[in-house]
Structure formats: C-alpha cells, structure tokens
C-alpha cells in the first residue's frame, strides 16, 4: 500500500467530479456514491493510521514519482493519520445523518450539493496529508471555496454570511500564502521536511519572523481564533443545517492541525516561543476566546448560534494547547480536535434533528421536546456533559491533559481559566437541558399530561413534534457514544497514537 497517503483525498476528489454528472442522469445514485467515497476515504485513513502505528514511522509518497524538493510529497505520520481518521469518520456520520435535511435544503441541486461536500472534504483531507506548504494553501482554498458555496445555500441570510466568510476566509488564505512566500525567500523550498531542515540551519532573520506571523494570522482566521472569529457565528447559524453540522465539527479543526504542523515539523523547536511570540499570543488569545465564547453563548437564543459561540470557546482551549507547545500541550490539543469533533458533530446534528422534528431552533421554544424526541435530547445531554467536561467523557480528558500541560509550564492562570470556562459552558448547556426536560410542555390542545407515563395519549397533542427517523438518530447516537467510549479509552489514543507522533 505505498499509495496510501494519496488514497485518502483521492476518492473524494474523484467522486466530486462524478457526482455532478450523476446528478444529471441518475439523481438517486448521488447519495450512495458520495457516502461510498467518504467511507472509502475513512477506511483508507483508518488503514493508514493502523499502518503508521504498527510501523512506527511515517508513510511518504511522492506524487508522480518526482523527488520531494521539486515534486509534491504526501506524508502520513501519526498526527496526520489521526486527524484524517477523525475528520473522515465524523464526516461520514454527519453526511449519512444529514441526508433528509440535505434533500430538502438542496432540492433539485443535489448533485452539485454533494459535489461541494466532497470537494470540501477532499480539501480538508488534502491539507492533512500533504507534505508541502504551497499544497496546503491549494487544498485550503479548495475546501474554503466549497464551504463558501455551501453556506450560501442557506437563503438570504446564508448568502450574507457566506459573503462575510468569503472575505475573511480569503484574507486568511492570502495571509497564509504571503507567510509561505516569506519563508520561501529564505529557504527556497516549499517542501515541509526540506523547509524544516533549512530553517534549522539558518540564522533567525526578519523574513522568517514575518513569515511566521503571516502564517499564524492566516491560520488564526481559519480556526476562528478570537478576534478573527467574526465569520463563524453567522456562517454556522445561517448555513443550511445539513451544512453547518458538517462544517462545525471538522473545518476549523484542520486549521488547528496545520498550526500544530507548523510547531511540529516546520519551525525549529523553540523558535515560535522564543524568537517570535506566537505561543504567547496563542495562549492569550485562546484564553480570551474560551471565556468570551462561553460568555457570548450564554446570551444566545438560537441553538445553532449558541453552539457556534461554544465552538469559539472550545477552539480557544485548542489554541491554548497549541500555544503551550510542549508535547503534552500539543497532544492535549490534538485530543481535543478529536473530542470536539465528536461532541460538536453530535450537538449540531441535534440542532438539525430538532429543526426537522420540532421545527424550531430557538432555545426558548424547546420546552417539552425532551419527551417528544427522547433520543435526540439524550444525545444533547451526553454531548453537553462531555462539553462541560465531566469524567469519564472525552471532553474531560482534553481539559485534563491541557491542565497538566499548563501546570507543567507553571501557567497557573491557564489552569484557572480552563476550569472557569467549563463552568461557564455548564451554564449555557444546562440552560438548554432545563428547557428540554424541565420546562412544562406547551399545551396545544386539552390538558397537560400530568404524570401519566404513557406516551400514547401525549403524542396526540404534541403539535407534530416527533422523533427523527433512525438514519438521523443512529449516527448522532454513535457520535455521542464515541465521546464516552473514547473518553474511557483515551490512554490508548494518547499512548499509541499521539505520544509516538510528538
């Protein structure tokens, strides 16, 4: 399997060309084709992960057989295999669950819709497996352009959100490209391994410093690091629900992954901490983001917007982990990439399911939904508990390692803020749980059902609120379950995958 690295993005890229054609002649084949492509890519990622873990060294692949400094190299090491496996499997769950929502929201344009989804995923997986700085930019633009188009499907508000996202996202992409150009001045190469070697040999100079600043500013936009997050709340709120549940869990994570990659395999060790204060900036902005995001989430009425601000908060924690920059800090950040992808995937699918089943996404309108939509609501409860970080859910352990990494560096205020932000997230998440389960159900007709445990009488007067079908609830239940199981088994992930890779 020497071709394994390229086989992760390739099925997605190929399918994105086939699917629009299928949309014209055989619309029924679009969905199975797309799912098959994503499943294939997920299987390849899993295979690559297994192989990397077994071999203990990275898989390298040169595109077209051209040797690295000239040709493009694809590298799958522990970290990239891990991230690729996470995003492809979460994407698989989400795309399956979002079938009905997508059929409604992209009616008549299904072929194009799924082509965009596949392009988005191809771009993201490409960013993860490539070993070339410029190639990262290319894949980043592919995924971003697909994302702008998908967000714009969300009606008039979606178009505005997409426009804003487009402007800010393009600025971010350009910054990244500029930064890479500055590095190129010094090194004359775009290959990551080559760049790392040459940067380690050269004296620190202003061109490299400016390059680092531009690169991180650009990536900061992509991962919605405060104050560069302004595109995110609108994009997540007004995008069609089949789109935001796909974008929210994985898109920003890949930005974070590229940041980790910069620390790990581009800049010499200590450079981003001592020569250029990138670490310090990431920690400061991350902490500010984690508190601000949670604070802003408290005031939101729209469930999706609340979750969007919650993402800003969680991505802040991720940035803190990257900023700490010790192997444990980076491991905590990468573990959080996985945990947050699982939790946010589940929670945005809940929001989608509630929009479909109950027709609302206003938190205040969710009274009594807990009984009508038991699976969806319990997934929300599990996701919320994981997000707050109660052991033994996955969310606890990213905060646990983050805390340990922070204390290790003597960053006590980081520990305090991390703990405080999980209290803040408890405030906004339990507010929703209270609504779902404890607020009296609105009386549609007849008396409220008091104490009777039979749902038969109740469902007659529930105003049409009913549980989503199995193909929606099963994937999101699996994501929630994974958030618990992978929490309990986090040591396996840490010791087998992340620690050897860092």
């Amino acid at each position, binding site marked *: 399997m020497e071709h394994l690295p390229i086989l992760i993005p390739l099925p997605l890229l190929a399918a994105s060309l086939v699917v629009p054609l299928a949309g014209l002649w055989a619309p029924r084949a679009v969905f199975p084709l797309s799912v098959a492509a994503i499943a294939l890519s997920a299987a390849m990622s899993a295979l690559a992960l297994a192989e990397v873990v077994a071999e203990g060294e990275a898989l390298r692949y040169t595109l077209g057989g051209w040797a690295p400094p000239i040709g493009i190299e694809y590298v799958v090491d522990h970290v990239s295999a891990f991230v690729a496996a996470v995003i492809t499997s979460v994407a698989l769950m989400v795309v399956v669950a979002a079938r009905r929502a997508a059929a409604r929201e992209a009616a008549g344009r299904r072929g194009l819709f799924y082509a965009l989804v596949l392009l988005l995923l191809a771009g993201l997986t490409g960013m993860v497996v490539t070993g070339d700085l410029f190639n990262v930019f290319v894949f980043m633009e592919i995924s971003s352009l697909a994302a702008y188009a998908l967000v714009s499907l969300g009606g008039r508000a979606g178009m505005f959100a997409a426009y804003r996202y487009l402007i800010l996202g393009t600025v971010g992409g350009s910054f990244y490209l500029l930064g890479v150009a500055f590095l190129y001045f010094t090194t004359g190469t775009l290959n990551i391994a080559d760049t790392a070697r040459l940067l380690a040999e050269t004296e620190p100079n202003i061109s490299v410093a400016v390059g680092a600043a531009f690169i991180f500013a650009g990536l900061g936009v992509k991962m919605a690091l405060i104050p560069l997050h302004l595109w995110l709340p609108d994009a997540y709120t007004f995008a069609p629900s089949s789109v935001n549940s796909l974008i929210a869990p994985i898109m920003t994570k890949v930005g974070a992954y590229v940041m980790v990659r910069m620390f790990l395999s581009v800049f010499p060790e200590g450079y981003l901490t001592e020569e250029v204060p990138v670490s310090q900036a990431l920690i400061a902005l991350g902490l500010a983001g984690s508190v601000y995001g949670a604070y802003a989430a408290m005031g939101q009425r729209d469930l999706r917007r609340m979750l969007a601000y919650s993402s800003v908060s969680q991505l802040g924690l991720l940035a803190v982990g990257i900023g700490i920059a010790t192997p444990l800090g980076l491991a905590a950040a990468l573990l959080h990439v996985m945990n947050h992808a699982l939790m946010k995937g589940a929670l945005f699918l809940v929001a989608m399911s509630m929009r479909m089943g109950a027709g609302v996404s206003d938190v205040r309108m969710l009274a009594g939904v807990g009984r009508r939509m038991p699976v969806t609501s319990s997934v929300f409860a599990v996701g919320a508990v994981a997000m707050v970080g109660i052991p033994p859910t996955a969310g606890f352990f990213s905060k646990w390692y983050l805390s340990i990494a922070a204390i290790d560096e003597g960053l006590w205020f980081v520990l305090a803020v991390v703990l405080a932000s999980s*209290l803040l997230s408890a405030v906004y998440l339990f507010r929703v749980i209270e609504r779902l389960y404890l607020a009296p159900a609105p009386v549609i007709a007849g008396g409220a059902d008091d104490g009777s445990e039979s749902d038969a009488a109740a469902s007659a007067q529930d105003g049409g609120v009913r549980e989503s079908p199995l193909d929606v609830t099963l994937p999101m239940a699996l994501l929630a379950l994974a958030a618990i199981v992978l929490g309990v088994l986090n*040591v396996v992930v840490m010791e087998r995958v992340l620690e050897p890779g860092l």
Partner: protein
Amino acid sequence: MGEVISSPLPFLVVLAPLIVAAAAPMLGRWPNAREGVSIAGALATLGLVAALLPDALEGKAATASLVELSPGIEVTLRADAAGMLFALLASFLWVLAAVYSIGYMRGLEEQKQSRFYAAFALSVGAALGVAFAANLLTFVLFYELLTLFTYPLVVHRETPEAVRAGRKYLAYTLTGGLALIGAAAWLAMLGVDASFRAGGFLGEQRWWTDGQLWALFFLLVGGVGVKAAVMPMHSWLPAAMVAPTPVSALLHAVAVVKAGVFGMVRVLIFVFGADLLRDMGAWQVIAAASGATLILASFLALRHDNLKRRLAYSTISHLSYIVLGVALLGPLALTGALLHMVGHGVTKITLFFCAGAIHVRTHRDQVSGMAGIGRQMPITMGAFALASLSMVGIPPFILFTSKWYLGWGAAEVGQQAFLILYMVSGVLSAAYLFPIVIRAFGERSPAFPRFGEADARMVVPIASGE
C-alpha cells in the same frame, strides 16, 4: 492498609446499581416489575458489599483495577475499612429507601417515576464508587458522576423552584468538583502516586513548598467541603429540599453529603495524614469552620418552621460534627466521626422518612401544623421521637455512642473547647427536635382531620430505621 487482594467484587458492587438503572426505564410500563427490580438490585448490592466484609475485617482490601484513565493512573476500586463502612451504610439505606420510595412516589402520584428510580440507582452506584475509590482520580470521577446523577433527582418536581434549586446545586457542586480536578491534575503532572494511603501520601514525599501545600489543601478541602456542606458552602442543601423526600433522604443520609464527609476523611487522613496537618496547623482552619457551622446551623434550624428545612439545617450541623471529629486528628475522635457518619445516616433517614410520610398523608410541611399528629400516626411519630432522642445523643442510641467518642476524642487531644461545642449543639438539637414530638403527641387540635397511619410500605422502613 494491610494486605491487598485482587477481586472483582468491588467492581460488581458499583456495577449492580447501574444494571438497575438500565432496567428501570425499560420496565416503565410495569411499575411492579420496575420497583421489584429496584428492591432486588438494592438487596443484591447489599449482599455484594456484605460479601466483601469478611476480607475487610481481616484487614485485607479487595481491589479491582479497571481501565487506565490517564497514563499511569488506573480506575481502581478498593474495599478498605473506611470505604466498607460507607459502602455498607449506603447500600443498607438504599434497601430501605427503595421500599420507602414506592409508598411515597405512588402515594403522591409523582411524575416520571422511571427516571426517578434510574437516577436514584445511578446515584447510589456513584456513591459506592466514591466509597471504594482507591486514588484521587477515581474519587474525582465518581464524585463528579454523583453530582450529575443526583441533578435529575433534585429537579424532579420540575417546578421553577426545583429548577432554581437544581441550578444552585450544580453551581456549588460543579465548582467543588473543579477544585478537585485542579488538584488531581496538579498531582498527576508531578507524577505523584495519588493512591489513598492511611497516614497520607503527601507527608513522605516532601516535594512541596509550604505555599503549594496550602494551595493543595484549600483545593482539596474546598472541593469536598462543598458536598459536606461546611459553611459558607452549604446553601445548596436547604435549597435542594424542594425535591421529593426520598431524594432528601438520598442527599442527606445515603449518598451526597456523606460522600462529602467521607471525602473529607479521605483527604485529611489518606492524602495529607494527621502528622502533616498538625505540622501545617491546617486542622485549626477546618476545626474553626466546622465548629462555627455546628453552632450556627443549629441556631438556624431553630428558626425554621418547615420541617424539611429544619432537618436540613440539622444535617448541616451534624455533618460538621463529623468534619470536626476528623479534623481533631485523634484516633478516638476519628472513631467517633466514622460512627457518627453511620449513625447520622440511619437516624436522619428515619426523620426524613417520617417527614415524607406526614407529607403524603396530610400534605402538611410546617411544624406548627403538626399538633396532635402523633395520635393519628403513632408508629411514624414514635419512630420520629426515637430518632430525635438519638439525634440529641441520649443513651443507648447510636449517636450517643458517637458523640461520646467525639467528645472524649476532643478532650484527648486537649481541645476541651470543642467538647463544649458538642454539648451545646446537643442541647440545641433537643431544642429544635423535641418541640415537634411534644406537639405531635401532646397537643390536641380540634380542627385536625383524621388521616390514619401511613402506608405500610413507608412505615416498615421507618420503623426499621432505628
């Protein structure tokens, strides 16, 4: 700690309530089966705990190690002597509470009973996990789960008041949990083996400076102090009184606050150790806080006319008996504290069951409305009277014995002042409990309708409580 033997039993003890919790919602349509499972599960749990007893009495600690949670730190359950005491108490009272709940919940036709039984079983399971936790991370895990699982019980009534109480409960206990997590992360970062050990593990390690030691002290003691309702961290407990009475019994007698004081024992004796606390002078901090709580809460109990609130403040006061007993760091006082933990559990559950029985039969919650009720419900109020006598500390009841040890222990370490505190508080207990009994039996209210005795399903647990 004596010999350590490997055994799956501690794990099964924690698992049994989970099975009940899983079965309860599935049997929602057949209440008899559901409640049968609940009682059977409680009995099975008690049996499993009892099966651990012979080894524990011989000084062997049955230990079960499960999955590794963080590199080098496993979830380990160990049935040592202190843990066994708490586990026996919790599982025994669960049997009583399981029987009582049926009478109470059916009597009031409460809503969502399946959720109630499931959450109740989960809470007991988490409490048993707290009892058997052999290291700090395991303790934190179950301590947090206990918070989470009791939340649905606190908000069970789903009234705005219950929701407010639930928020308060979460705010207090989650904050306490975070303090514990912070401390646990700190120790994990240092690679300190945070396994509980009699005599403490910090004393022999000496990696710390004084400032670090105090920080750790406040994080850990503050974390468990919230659930032990030491003032000023107590106000969630009276607020949580809106929950159904079996839940109050769970909070006060079986699981939550007992997990707090038990945590205090673990932190003070098994993490810091008596010698270290004496060197630090830290015990005075706890003794002062719990001594003040002891007296203040007794006075506050006097002021409340609502029976359950009065009992809540009584609990706060009695918890501080225990905390103070631990903080005195003498062997006699510690014995007294552990005895008091058990005795208070049994006694307070009786009082709450009585309050609940009165509520079910008469829908009266105010002490002033209970004149002459003893003639209607002789068994209930008889049990109430006995429990009150015990609470005040009259021989031959268990709380006399524990107070005797506590007082003796205080004198032993030369702290006669605390001996006096214990005595004053005993008098105050009499002052807030006896009037209820006297009024119930002595006065006759002409307008008092006939209620009759409570359901047998509630009487039996009450009577057996003493």
